[in-house]
């Protein structure tokens, strides 16, 4: 029972929750760029939320399975084209054996996560199946997928159960068509004191654009230069997912999943965890504005998101095929409500996520 890669897409890798516990030796954790999309996709097909997924950037792979499987794609308005039938993101899709599966790309989101029911038979390296491209370890032979690759499934019997009724409420990601600037919340520090008052005002009051020189290591932003009191170099210290470095050019770089573990550029602030997955889904050309947040507020948001996620999962498990109509009605009502409320005024500032 295997998954065949007919066309990998430009950069598709295997990622899970990440290679944790080795940062002191310099190993980046890698892992999901959008952990919310990845755990949604996994739960939809009955996997553990931290199971390894196929993560693609903008253009998805073309796949074929030997036997019937349940799959799901999440992370943007991607879709699954299974033998010509198109299914939207954020739902489970039962793919009959031998069907060619393509991923359709819409206008919103950049990193897509494809979960395959039963999980992929990928060896665990240092506690994780995540691909670390820099080291050539983890994932499928330590590299991005290539045409002709075959990956076995761990529990092929997963496909015997039809899960195609399972759906998750779609997240609201910020579309490139949306004229609004995205607000991203950050916790100041740990080197905030290296910047002048003018520099801090520039950082928090300006708009920064995501450049095409952005990848799994970090997103380079362009915009007004942030003034420091005397250079941007520090005695190298630790970096986290979402650390905002100001490099020698005075512009921000936001460190992402394949970041280095330590570094020598001053870190003005760090993205809060609940905003990282949505920030990760912004495409080059999209604009952000940074907004201060306290660590206590950020941690309250994490706990709230954690409770909401558990409720979503519980509802999903309690629901079943007979209730499809109820879910669809609810989704339709929610959609209608969103349409009725309409979009914010052009140029207005909008916060990530559902309130």
């Amino acid at each position, binding site marked *: 029972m295997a998954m065949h890669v007919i066309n990998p897409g430009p950069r598709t890798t295997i990622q899970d929750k990440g290679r944790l516990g080795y940062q002191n030796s310099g190993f980046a954790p890698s892992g999901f760029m959008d952990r919310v999309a990845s755990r949604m996709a996994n739960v939809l097909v009955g996997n553990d939320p931290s199971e390894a997924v196929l993560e693609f950037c903008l253009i998805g792979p073309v796949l074929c399975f030997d036997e019937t499987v349940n799959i799901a794609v999440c992370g943007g308005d991607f879709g699954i084209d299974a033998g010509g039938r198109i299914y939207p993101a954020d739902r489970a899709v039962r793919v009959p054996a031998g069907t060619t599966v393509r991923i359709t790309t819409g206008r919103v989101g950049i990193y897509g996560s494809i979960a395959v029911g039963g999980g992929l038979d990928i060896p665990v390296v240092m506690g994780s199946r995540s691909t670390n491209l820099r080291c050539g370890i983890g994932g499928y032979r330590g590299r991005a997928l290539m045409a002709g690759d075959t990956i076995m499934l761990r529990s092929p019997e997963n496909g015997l159960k039809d899960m195609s009724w399972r759906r998750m409420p779609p997240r609201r990601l910020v579309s490139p068509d949306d004229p609004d600037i995205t607000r991203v919340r950050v916790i100041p520090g740990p080197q905030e004191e290296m910047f002048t008052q003018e520099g801090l005002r520039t950082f928090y009051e300006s708009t920064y654009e995501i450049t095409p020189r952005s990848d799994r290591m970090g997103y380079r932003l362009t915009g007004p230069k942030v003034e420091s009191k005397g250079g941007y170099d520090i005695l190298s210290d630790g970096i986290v997912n979402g650390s905002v470095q100001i490099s020698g050019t005075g512009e921000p770089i936001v460190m992402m999943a394949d970041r280095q573990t*330590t570094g*020598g550029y001053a870190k003005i602030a760090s993205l809060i965890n609940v905003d990282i997955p949505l920030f990760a889904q912004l495409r080059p050309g999209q604009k952000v504005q940074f907004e201060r947040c306290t660590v206590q507020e950020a*941690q309250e948001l994490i706990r709230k998101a954690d409770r909401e996620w558990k409720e979503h999962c519980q509802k999903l498990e309690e629901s079943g095929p007979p209730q499809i109509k109820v879910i669809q009605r609810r989704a339709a009502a929610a959609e209608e409500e969103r349409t009725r409320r309409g979009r914010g005024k052009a140029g207005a500032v909008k916060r990530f996520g559902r309130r």
Partner: protein
Amino acid sequence: MEYKILPVGDSALTIVFGNEIDPETSRIVRIARNYLTNQNIEGVNEYVQTYATLMVHYDPVTVGYDELAAGIDAALARMDLTSDHMKKHTIVIPVCYGGEFGPDLPTVCEHAGLSAEEVIRRHSAVDYLIYMLGFMPGFVYLGGMDRSISTPRLRNPRERLEAGSVGIAADQTGIYPLVSPGGWQIIGRTPLKLYDHDREKPILYEAGEYIRFVPITEAEYAAIRKQVENGTYEYQWIREG
């Protein structure tokens, strides 16, 4: 012992013990890492040691910042600073300086006002303490470099440096174990594989050990490289105690 605790995002904090490259500060950071690791503090996932700080990665659903910072304060108050003993272990790293392998050697010479021979002599005259690993697997941050050869890092980092590149950034020197982008002034390259996940010990050394750079010629570089690729190269260690 003075320190301060600062949040780094909402899932990590840093304990800042100083702001200098200093063996005594490093010793305190190392003791703190070992001590806190043994405390098994709930919610903590891992510790990352740097020159003068200890980063604590934690799960904010399990433990909040205020509670964790208070717990670390209480633990550090009980810590015994005399508990650390390390024998000196030094690994020999052969380096071919200048030329194609060290494109920034002229920049360093110019900045220091020294000849290439003198920069190489000063760079290879010291046993460097490995203060920390980071930035990428096996990347060492070494202390003890002669400040007369200090050179600021590049204003714009290079997109690609070869594995084994030896460089200088301000008062620091180090090696790139993997192909990487980077902002250091590159003065040479080692033929050794510093990181190899097929080897029993993927990374040759750890924090607290020492590195000695030994200048080699291009011909020696080629010969050692061949042995490394054949798996016949014997790594040279100098062990005391």
